[in-house]
């Protein structure tokens, strides 16, 4: 029994830990929020280390409902730390009001369990359960500030649209199950491998992809993203933009390559369309934005588009580039959001307008430099490290013969570069605005520094180790 559960050690740790913490939090009340948060962070770090061993190579568990392979382990290795960072980020942010309850950390823990089920799911049922666990936690998190109307609106909007997307996904799943008689990915692959898929299967495939596209905020299912990102409390936005997004993209990768692998021709055109639409809409719609959270929302749509180019390329090389892309993307995004969390006026209230960044390089040079590094990196301008994952996805596309796709995508980077440059311009070339309040948060500061160094040219030293891990992880789903 123990041996059968060993591959699920991280999930077990998180679920049991989260349940206990929830009960503790209920009794401790607001006083306990600080140490519940730190315990949650410790739990997530411990879960990350628990990935070493059985959870990364034990293979199918529970008759193939989920699997413990390197692909899933890689996903968890980037999801758990970013969930931990989302908790740390909230620590200094909520504390001033009386609104920071311990549930925040617990909700993120449950969401982390859901995400780890998502990335290791090998059956439509576990896929759906994992996804819903994340979604339910996310709806609550988005509406986490009851005093803020925008937060409540974000939560409601996310819930209504999310429920619709879940319905679409479930409908797709029922079609696939109805036409093949199996919910397991291996069974689906076998069914799709038996010749041209029937109309029912095609419909199922499209609906499932549409549901996943919603969760990953891919165009044309992105409408909720800017509103929810703007309305949700900033630490929650940082969380939404990182871990759940990576989980959704990884899940889509596994579904497309493992379950729908034989039907590559059927889904490839959908993914290509979604990729290019995301890149261009993400780049163009960001032009007029004045709120930095909205801008980063479009930036995340844009970036997922690039990751999908790697998916459209398919094959181990494409999958590996998607993993690499999401890993670097998470670092850049979390770094950028940690900077946004430091945007406070003299009274310590959070500021979100891009204008308020004016002349930041003169009042706070290090802060401005860090944010500029993240912006240039998100834009994919060498010598910053954000360039390398873009190169990898385009390389995968060119190697699969999709040169036109790569050309179109790379033209999108030039359009997108404009608004990243705009932030740099505001910080470096405009006259200084009212300075921000100084925030004394050494841990967040250290995290920003680490993220900035990781995406600086020093990041190229990571290509070797990270590249070999993503290659192996990608191999494990073929």
């Amino acid at each position, binding site marked *: 029994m123990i041996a059968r559960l060993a591959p699920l050690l991280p999930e077990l740790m998180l679920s049991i830990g989260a349940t206990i913490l929830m009960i503790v939090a209920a009794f401790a009340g607001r006083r306990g929020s600080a140490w519940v948060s730190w315990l949650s962070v410790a739990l997530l770090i411990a879960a990350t280390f628990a990935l070493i061993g059985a959870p990364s190579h034990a293979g199918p568990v529970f008759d193939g409902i989920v699997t413990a392979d390197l692909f899933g382990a890689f996903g968890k290795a980037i999801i758990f730390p970013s969930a931990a960072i989302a908790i740390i980020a909230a620590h200094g942010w909520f504390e001033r009001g009386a609104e920071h309850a311990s549930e925040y950390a617990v909700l993120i823990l449950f969401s982390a369990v859901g995400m780890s089920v998502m990335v290791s799911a090998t059956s439509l049922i576990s896929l759906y359960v994992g996804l819903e666990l994340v979604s339910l936690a996310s709806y609550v998190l988005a509406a986490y500030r009851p005093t803020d109307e925008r937060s409540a609106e974000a939560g409601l909007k996310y819930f209504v649209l999310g429920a619709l997307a879940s319905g679409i996904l479930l409908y797709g799943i029922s079609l696939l199950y109805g036409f093949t008689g199996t919910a397991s990915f291996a069974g689906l692959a076998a069914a799709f491998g038996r010749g041209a898929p029937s109309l029912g299967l095609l419909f199922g495939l499209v609906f499932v992809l549409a549901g996943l596209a919603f969760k990953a905020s891919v165009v044309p299912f992105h409408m909720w993203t800017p509103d929810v990102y703007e309305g949700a409390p900033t630490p929650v936005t940082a969380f939404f933009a990182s871990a759940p997004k990576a989980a959704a993209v990884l899940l889509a990768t596994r579904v497309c390559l493992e379950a729908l692998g034989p039907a590559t021709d059927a889904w490839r055109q959908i993914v290509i369309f979604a990729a290019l639409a995301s890149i261009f809409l993400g780049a163009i719609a960001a032009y007029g934005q004045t709120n930095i959270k909205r801008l980063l929302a479009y930036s995340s749509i844009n970036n997922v588009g690039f990751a999908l180019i790697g998916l459209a390329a398919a094959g181990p090389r494409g999958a590996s580039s998607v993993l690499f892309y999401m890993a670097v993307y998470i670092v850049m995004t979390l770094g950028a959001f940690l900077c946004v969390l430091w945007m406070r006026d003299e009274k310590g209230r959070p500021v979100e307008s891009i204008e308020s960044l004016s002349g930041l*390089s*003169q009042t706070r*040079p290090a802060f401005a430099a860090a944010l500029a590094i993240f912006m*240039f990196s998100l834009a994919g*301008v*060498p*010598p910053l490290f954000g*360039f390398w994952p873009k*190169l990898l996805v*385009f*390389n995968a596309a*060119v*190697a699969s013969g999709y*040169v036109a796709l*790569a*050309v179109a995508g*790379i*033209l999108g*980077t*030039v359009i997108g*570069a*404009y608004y990243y*440059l705009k932030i*740099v*311009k505001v910080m*470096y*070339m405009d006259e200084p605005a009212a300075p921000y309040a100084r925030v004394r948060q050494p841990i967040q500061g250290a995290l920003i520094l680490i993220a900035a160094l990781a995406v600086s*040219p020093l990041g*190229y*030293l990571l*290509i*070797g*180790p990270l*590249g070999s891990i993503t290659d192996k992880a990608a191999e494990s789903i073929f």
Partner: protein
Amino acid sequence: MSGLPLLTILIAIPLVAGLVALFLNANGARWLALAATLIDLALGAYLWIAYDPSGAQWQFVEHMPVAGSISWALGIDGIALVLIQLTTFLMPICIGASWRAIEKRVPEYMAAFLLMEALMLGVFAAQDLFLFYIFFEGGLIPMYLIIGIWGGAERIKASYKFFLYTLLGSVLMLIAMLYMVGAAHTTSIPSLMAFNFPVDAQKWLFLAFLASFAVKLPMWPVHTWLPDAHVQAPTAGSVILAGVLLKLGGYGFIRFSLPMFPDGSHQFVPLMFVLSGIAVVYTSLVALVQRDMKKLIAYSSVAHMGFVTFGLFAMNRQGIEGAMIVMLSHGLVSGALFLCVGVVYDRLHTREIDRYGGLADNMPGYALLFMVFTMASVGLPGTSGFVGEFLSSVGTYHASTWAAIAATTGIILGAAYMLWLYWRICFGTQRHKDAAAMPDLSTREWWLLAPIALAVFWMGIYPESFIRPIRGDVGRLLVRIERVAPQGDSQLTPGPGVPRAAHGATQ
């Protein structure tokens, strides 16, 4: 050769100095930047002495695999060597030119310049395709900041235009590079230079690289970012832009387009000649009507770059060596001309040509040096401009007489706009009191301009010093492209043989 990784040190010195400069005060940053660039100049000079023109093609080679498909591979041939000389020579001058002109945010400014130098040196030294691309594109960031922060009134627009224009050109090259690596299974530039790509693909690869290099060079009609960038950039920014950044385009043609895609190049020779001809003639005419000194020199840069592309795509020895000398000479001369503009701009804060006049009376030293550079730009024998333009025109003539006609027209027009500019600024009556009251060159300004003048004469009188290192490499390039070189219409045609007796020779 010593075991030290000289090229890495050459790149690392400005990089480290740039990072340190950020933490210093204004004066500390100035002195550190000067010291770092002078050390690099000395190292560059040592490379020049240590480089063996008859030795291996690639010297000072370093190779350290980073991971995957990228490696820290450096090495230089003669062509890269002379361009590295140019960079290390101009950099201390740029720092000197900014000594007093830049007063706000000096540490950041010096850091941007030093970073710029490190990246430019990296471009010339890189032997790995992706490493080259990273250096090549990386230069955009410091230049964007230099124009955008320390530039003139329209600096924001100019900086955006510069960044997005050049980025758009370069990304297509990246896709072409990915294809090349996929086809040749190597990222090593020397191996790729010997690799024969399929002829069909060469056409597309050439066009993708052209998109990048044509914008960088710049060629007509994608030159429009250059006048804006030059006019808005601070003086030293213009110097480095004209002196080194524009050379990246020409270097790219020599290093990539010609040796890697000879058949592609062959197909597009007519296009290149037409574009170069338009660049030479049209932009010279545009330069003629400018009222802003910097804009005039910016358009003259585009015209001079026309000589580079003419020479390169003539695909013969004179043409390519001439193109190289034009690049070096233009780097020195246009840099010096921008400095000359900077000298009077620092005093009167205007670049309007009409606001000056008769400066030869109150600024004789300035008028003398300005004349030297004007003559060099015109291509007077004895100056560097002559050697380059002459060789490049000879090469062009061998390839096509029509192209040569366009090129030589440009020389005449060049004389027209430069001499007229000089006349309007230095000669004539002194119409404006403030212009007449300007003091002559300070010691610092003499130190900036005199070395360039000496280099201009050196290159004009004894060009062998500069041609010797590149001769072997041009020869290797010619071996690769000889078979596709355009057959000119100006070859000597031997007439029918006439018996000796018939022309009156006696036994």
